[in-house]
Every structure is written in C-alpha cells, then in structure tokens.
C-alpha cells in the first residue's frame, strides 16, 4: 500500500445545521463532544497502527464546526497526530465558524499546532446570511478574519457562497471585494448547490424557493474569477483560489490522487494498493454510533469499496481535471481526450490536459468521459 501523508479528521457538531447543508453534521449535541474527542483520539491511535503512514504532511480538521471544540480538545487530537510524526512545515488546517474566532481561541489553536484557519464566511450580506441560516453577521465575519490574522495566523482562508437566491451580481461582488480587502491567502467560492436531502432541497421542490438560472450562476462565478485574478489570486481548482504558494496542500494531495486517512464520524479514507487499485473506506456517520463502535472495537468502519486499476485510473482523471493548471491523470485515455479536445472542453499541452473555460462549466461531462 502506498504510504500515507495526509490525515482528515471530522468533527460532526454544529450549533445549527443550515438548511442547504448535506455534510455529516448534527446540531446541539454538546454533551457528546468530550466523549467524541476521546473516541476520535482512540481511533487515530488504532488506525495509524494498521496502515503505512507518516510523516504526516497535511492535517485537515473539518466538519461540522470543529471550532466548537475547546482549544485543549483540539490539542488533544493533534497530540495523537504528533505521535504519528509530523513532517517539518506540515499544513494543519482547522475549519472555523466566525462566531468562534476570538483572540483567545486563535491563541489556543496556534498553541495546539494549527497553522491554517479556514473561516466559513459564506456571505456578508444580511439577507443572504438569513437565507442561509448563518448565525453570524457580516461584521462578525470580517472581524473573525482580522482577529485570526492579528492573532498570528499567516494562512487564512475564507469560504464564500454565490448563486444565493436574492443576491445579485453587484452584491456578490461587494462581498467578495470586502473579503479580499482583508488580505486572505486563500479563498473558496462555491456555488450554492441544492442537495435533495436538505430542507433547501425540499423548498426548491415545493416551489417555495427559486434558484437562480445557470446563466446568472455562471455570471457570478466568472465575475468572481476575474476579480480574484485581478487581485493576484491563482485559480487552481474549480472552486478554489490562492495567493502564490498558498494552495491548500491537503486538498491538492487528494485531487492529485494521493492517499489519505480519515478519522471521525462519517470520515472517508482513500488508500492506493500495490496493484494500482484504490480502496475507499468510510466510517459510521452518527456520532453516537461512532463513539459506541470505537469504544467497543477501536474502529468505526461502515463500508468500503475497491476500484479496479482501470476504474481507479478513471476516477483519478475525473478528479484530476478539476486542477486548472492541468493534470497528467488523463494520460491513459487518449480517445476520450481527443474527443474532449475537439469538443472544446480540454486543451492539451506538454503531455497534460486542462479544462477550457467551457470545460470548467461542463466539468462533470469531462469527468464522466473517463468513467467506465
């Protein structure tokens, strides 16, 4: 099995589960947090003994809302990672809600070893924040970025959502400009996506909410891309931009089809086996079930699948093309490459392919071409 250098840790708790969210998150389970952190620590200890891992180059604590943990709890978890062995200059990201970012927490996270903070700003506009059911205000979010930077984070990322009903192009640009003015190193701008199992999904189905059309969504997307580029950000993945040198190394590794170990409720792992097949495993999703299973057995495996080398190559290409600088992952698909190039979705350069502007808009069509 290929040696693992990336670790994903999931914290499934939120104060409130927003209506568009379909991540593995549960509201107000605060009494569970402490036993959960113990279980997660235990799972890490057991899991790293089963697979070839380390030194660990990237750690990503995602959620949910990992900033709901106390800073000692974050420290407790990262101690388990340190026991595995951290590479010098390892990237250690924590996802944070603006409301949880204070000079005290910032200090505590830095002490615990976190060196990259990803702040869930989503929007600055009051109507949009209300629509999205975010509990913070625009000034809270700007304040959070400032506090993080002032407190010593040299690598701060902000998450934004566009294509929110009721938010026009100008308002979206205002939000984006205000966040960029804070000098973040990294920015993720996601199109608000309607997932069928969510409350938003239901509202759209019943006609209560009307989503913007594809043209409007793309106008906001490309509008953002142009502003970010003008501000010196590199558009390195479909929804991600960074200052030079600040691309998220953890996610880059996954898009480059590097293996990772995931721990925590509902976390996914990806292993590359010696015969070039890929194994994906995932944990039980519910925090109660997760804690019980880990206490009893030391793991919380819920399911797994193994992709044959051929399917794994297709999957690698499907993911790889999302990297806008280009990828060599489509190497084994000359016929599909040729078709996509002639359809104007890909360009080929120096043995690599990359999406054209049209290719970005139809990235799923490109990805699907490499599958089975």
């Amino acid at each position, binding site marked *: 099995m290929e040696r693992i250098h990336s670790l*994903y840790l999931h914290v499934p708790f939120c104060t409130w589960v927003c209506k568009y969210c379909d991540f*593995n998150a549960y509201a107000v389970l605060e009494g569970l947090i402490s036993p959960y952190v113990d279980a997660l620590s235990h799972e890490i200890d057991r899991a790293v003994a089963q697979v070839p891992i380390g030194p660990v180059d990237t750690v990503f604590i995602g959620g949910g809302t990992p900033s709901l943990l106390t800073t000692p709890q974050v420290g407790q978890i990262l101690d388990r990672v340190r026991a595995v062995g951290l590479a010098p200059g390892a990237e250690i990201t924590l996802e944070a809600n603006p409301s949880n970012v204070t000079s005290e927490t910032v200090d505590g996270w830095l002490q615990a070893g976190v060196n990259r903070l990803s702040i869930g700003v989503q929007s600055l506009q009051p109507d949009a924040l209300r629509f999205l059911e975010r509990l913070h205000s625009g000034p809270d979010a700007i304040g959070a970025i400032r506090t993080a930077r002032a407190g010593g984070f040299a690598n701060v990322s902000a998450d934004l959502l566009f294509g929110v009903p009721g938010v026009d192009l100008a308002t979206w640009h205002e939000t984006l400009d205000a966040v960029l003015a804070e000098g973040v190193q990294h920015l993720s701008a*996601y*199109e608000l*996506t309607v997932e069928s199992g969510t409350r938003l999904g239901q509202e759209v189905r019943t006609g209560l909410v009307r989503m913007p059309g*594809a*043209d409007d*969504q*793309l106008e906001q997307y490309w509008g953002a891309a142009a502003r970010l580029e003008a501000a010196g950000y590199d558009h390195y993945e*479909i*929804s991600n931009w960074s200052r030079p040198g600040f691309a998220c190394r953890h*996610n880059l590794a*996954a*898009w480059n089809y590097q293996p990772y170990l*995931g721990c925590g409720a*509902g*976390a*996914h792992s*990806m292993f590359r086996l010696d015969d070039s097949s890929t194994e*994906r495993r*995932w944990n039980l999703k519910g925090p109660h079930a997760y804690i019980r299973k880990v206490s009893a057995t030391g793991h919380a495996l819920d399911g797994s*699948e193994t992709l044959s080398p051929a399917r794994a190559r297709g*999957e690698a290409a*499907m*993911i790889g093309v*999302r990297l806008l600088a280009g990828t060599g992952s489509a190497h084994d698909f000359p016929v599909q490459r040729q078709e996509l190039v002639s*359809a104007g*979705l890909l360009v080929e350069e120096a043995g690599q392919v990359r999406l054209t502007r049209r290719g*970005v*808009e*139809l*990235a*799923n*069509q490109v*990805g*699907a071409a490499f*599958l*089975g």
Partner: protein
Amino acid sequence: MSTPTHLTRAISVIAHVDHGKTTLSDRLLEYTGTVAPRDMVEQVLDQLDLERERGITIKAQAVRMLYKADDGNTYQINLIDTPGHVDFSYEVSRALAACDGAILVVDASQGIEAQTLANVHQALDHNLTIIPVVNKIDLPQGNPELVREEIEKVIGLPAETVIFASARQGIGTKEILEAVVHRVPPPTGDSAAPLRALIFDAKFDAYRGVVTYIRVLEGTLRPGMRIQMMQTGKSFEVDEVGIFRPERTPVDDLTAGEVGYLIANIRNVRDSRVGDTVTDEARPAAAPLPGYRHVTPMVFAGLFPTDTEQYQQLKDALEKLQLNDAALIYEPETSAALGFGFRCGFLGLLHMEIVQERLEREFNLTLLGTAPTVEYRVKLRNGEEVPVDNPDHLPDPGEIEAISEPMVLATIVVPSTYVGNMMELSQERRGQFLNMEYEPGDRVVITYRMPLAEIIHDYYDQLKSRSKGYASLNYELVGFEEANLVKLDVLVAGSPVDALSMIVDRSKAQQQGRRLAEKLKTLIPRQLFEVPIQAAIGGKIVARETVPAMRKDVTAKCYGGDVTRKRKLLEKQKEGKKRLKRVGNVEIPQEAFMAVLSLD
C-alpha cells in the same frame, strides 16, 4: 380417463380486455379441482411472465377439466383461454373454431364494449352456444341488471340465460359449469373418419420442439402416426399426444371432440401454423377445415441494437423468438443513422411492444425501435407495384404513379356523451363515416373506414383520453385505398436521420413537420453543442427548431466522500446514456424515434 363423446365439451372464454376472463378461468380450474388451491398462482393460464405482469393473455392456453355435474355424470370440459387484444383476433377466431360453446364475460361496471361485440360476432360465425356472464357483480360501481338488459337488447341473448358472477369471489362458478354441460352441445365428429384436427396454437419447447395445440374434430390421433399439415403440406411422425391438466399429460390417443397437443419433432412454429388442419398422411381427409388464413403482419418497425456490437445477439434472439411466434417476421435492414438492424413485422402495436420487451428481457439486449409504420403499395410510372414498409424506402416522387395504404373498418363503442369527440377525432384522422347505432344502456356503436396508419398513430390513446376512458375500439383490415401521401424527412444537426422519416397525408404534412420538430426539441437532451432540428418535404425545409447547448454541469465541491458520490452519480448517468443512440455526434433517446406517433 376416457370420457364418452356425449359427456365431452369444448368451450372458450371470450371478453373485452380486462373484463375478468382469466380470473374466471382460474375459478373454473379451482372449482373442478384441476388445480389445487394451494398450487393456484394468480392467473394459472397466463404462462409468460410478461402476461402475468401485464395482466393480459398473449398466447392461447388450453386445459382439460373433469366436472361432476348435478345430474351425476362426470363431464370432460376442455377450456381454451384466448388472447383478449385486437392484435390477436385471428388467434381468437381459431380458438373459437375449436370450440362448441363460449362463455361471454361482460364486466358489470363497463358493460358491452367493442371487443365484446367483435368476439360475439366471431362466436356466432362459428355457431357457438354462448353463455353470457355478467362478471364483477361485487363491485359497488357495477350495474348487473342494466348490463343484463344490454346483453339481451344488443346481442340478442335472452336475459334469463345471463349468469351473475364474481370471479374474484367465486360467485356463480357452479352455475356456469352447469350451464356449460347442459347448454353446450357435445361434439358430433366421427372418431373413425379420416383425421381432421384444427391447430389453434403452438409453442416452442426447447427440449421437445414445437408443441402443437389441437382439437380433433374427426378421426383419432395416436403416437406413431405420420401426419400431414394440409396447408403447408409438411409431414411429421407423431411422438406424443396428450392433454393439459393443466400441465402436459401424455395419453394413448385423442378422439373426435377432444382437445390436446401433439409433439412430432417439429423444429419451428412456422411448420405448425395456427388455423392449419392436421390429417393422417396414410388416409388423408378430403378437404381441410375452413377458415385458414395466412397471418400477415399489419405494422412494421426497425429494431436496432443501441450497442452495434449486439447485432449478432439480436439476430440470434429473433431467430429463437420466431420459433415461438409465427406472426413475427424480420429481415436485415441497414439504416444510415442507426446502423445494422432488422425490419420486423408485427400483428399490431401490442405485439410489437411485447416482442421488443421480450427481446430485451429474455435476451439481455438494449434495443432501439423505430416508429411503427404500415405497409404501403406504391405503383410506379413503369407499371410496377412495390410494397414499402419503411418510409425511407419510398421511391423518388418522380417515379411514383400512386400510393395506396391499408384501410380498416373501425368499430367504436362509446357512451352517447362522447359521440361528438369520437367523430371529431376520426374525422381528423381521415376517417370516412359509415354508420352509427344507438343501443340501450346509453351506448353508441360508430363505424368508420379509416387508414390503418392513422390508427397506429396514437388513435387509441386519443380515443381513450377524449372519452374519459369509456370508448373501446375494434378494427379489421378491409383493403387498400389510394391516398395523397408524401414523405416527411427529419434532419438532426444538418444530417438526415432516415429512421425518423414518415409518410403523411399531403394536406397535413407541413403541420406534422412543425409538430414533429417541436416535439423532438423537447425529447432530444441538450448536448455539448447546439443541435438544429429540421423537417423537410421533398428537400424543402418546412420547420426548424434548435436544442440549445448544455449550459452548465459542474459540481462545486469535490472532497473526501463527495468523490465516491460523484463518481457513482456520473457512472449512473453514463449507464443511462447507453439507452441513447448516437447518430453522428448527437445522442438521441428512444422516445424521439416514437415521437411521430403522437403529434396531436
């Protein structure tokens, strides 16, 4: 086992589709102990999975029951279950020819419908004793009394002969059996005469070859005899004769009046044609039984594998299916758009659907069927006449003297409220009004002469929807008639798609072209590029629509668990795409090829 001739009966159950024919047959089997209740699968006689699922009978079935009547005698009752759909009316007619009586089932809530009448006329043509049964009397919306009155007034069967029944609840079963033994006459044939046995069905058994379903009308049939099929002239040696109880049970002989089967190492159902007469080669009968008709297909369509590599499999599958379906014909066809496939002939639309479904299901194929068409007769200027069963093969207009199309006599039975709608629809469909009769029970029987092509183009669905489901239809072919027809072509992304061509009435061609283009626009999914759709008559574009290019298909987030989810989603979409046929670089779904059927 042997029953004296005077205690033998042969009957059929006839009904409009869905009136409960098969359920009633099941009750008779149960009541006579032919099938133990614990072995009773709902609808024993429908043997194909497809028949059970769709609740219809496609193949005729036969079974022998023994019934101890109130008079103390044990009767042998041979029951032949017939297909209820108009596509198979010839099969019904042959099954009836093999009987002496018929149980006519009429639904207590639906009353007499078009096929009820058609079936009754057939039964009367064969001099059958009819036992009228009003079924489903347990349903609250039923009106058995009214239906009984209808039976007397419309069909002319005395009201007091009508039996009330509920096949579901087993009400009336005994009364029906008593009526069968007392009202239906015993067979009159002479078992010592030269053999004449009527073939009313045949099916292919992978181990035994063709199993021929027969009724012996005269003479005696035994294993070891050399028999001859009087229409095809082919001879075979009989391996086995037997009866259905309901599974096949060999017997020593079948004598005059008995219903059963014969197995004679026949390899193809074509050599055992429904309606043919089986005789003794050594002592042949002077003349065959009357009524034999060579079954000819009424509608034609192309069947193409969506994956071109399945061509050989499709060919093998058709060969196998044909062993069991004498009405199915096919020949290789090449389409510029769809590649290699087969032009197939069917008895009707249901038959076509069933064949396609069986090919896909039983042989694991993914097929694309083109819109069905009728067979035109084209008279050329050089005096030649050619049949055309594929619109794309219509000769150049300059060579054509005249085109004739098949005509049918259509009988519609409908409550009087909807008469206006029915006439409007039939007029739109080039129908020539022939007759209208008001019957009791607020029923009107309307007859039209109209082109078969109009019937297969969604006429039945329209009839149903414009009568809130009340109208019923029966039709029969009555000949050919000259018409003013033209070919309508369709171009997708600038290239003609031969499989979308259709032959239409000249006066409606422009409008049809516009509708077809509009419809195709909704059916062809967005592609990576814009796709123009054009309709043309004789090279002149009469309509144009455009399928806009796909605007956006991109997933915003792709992390951790999203990857598996996204891959599965894309794989599923891709699987769905396999049902699309790639024509040039445009992917066209099956429904688009059927679009021409419903342009109203």
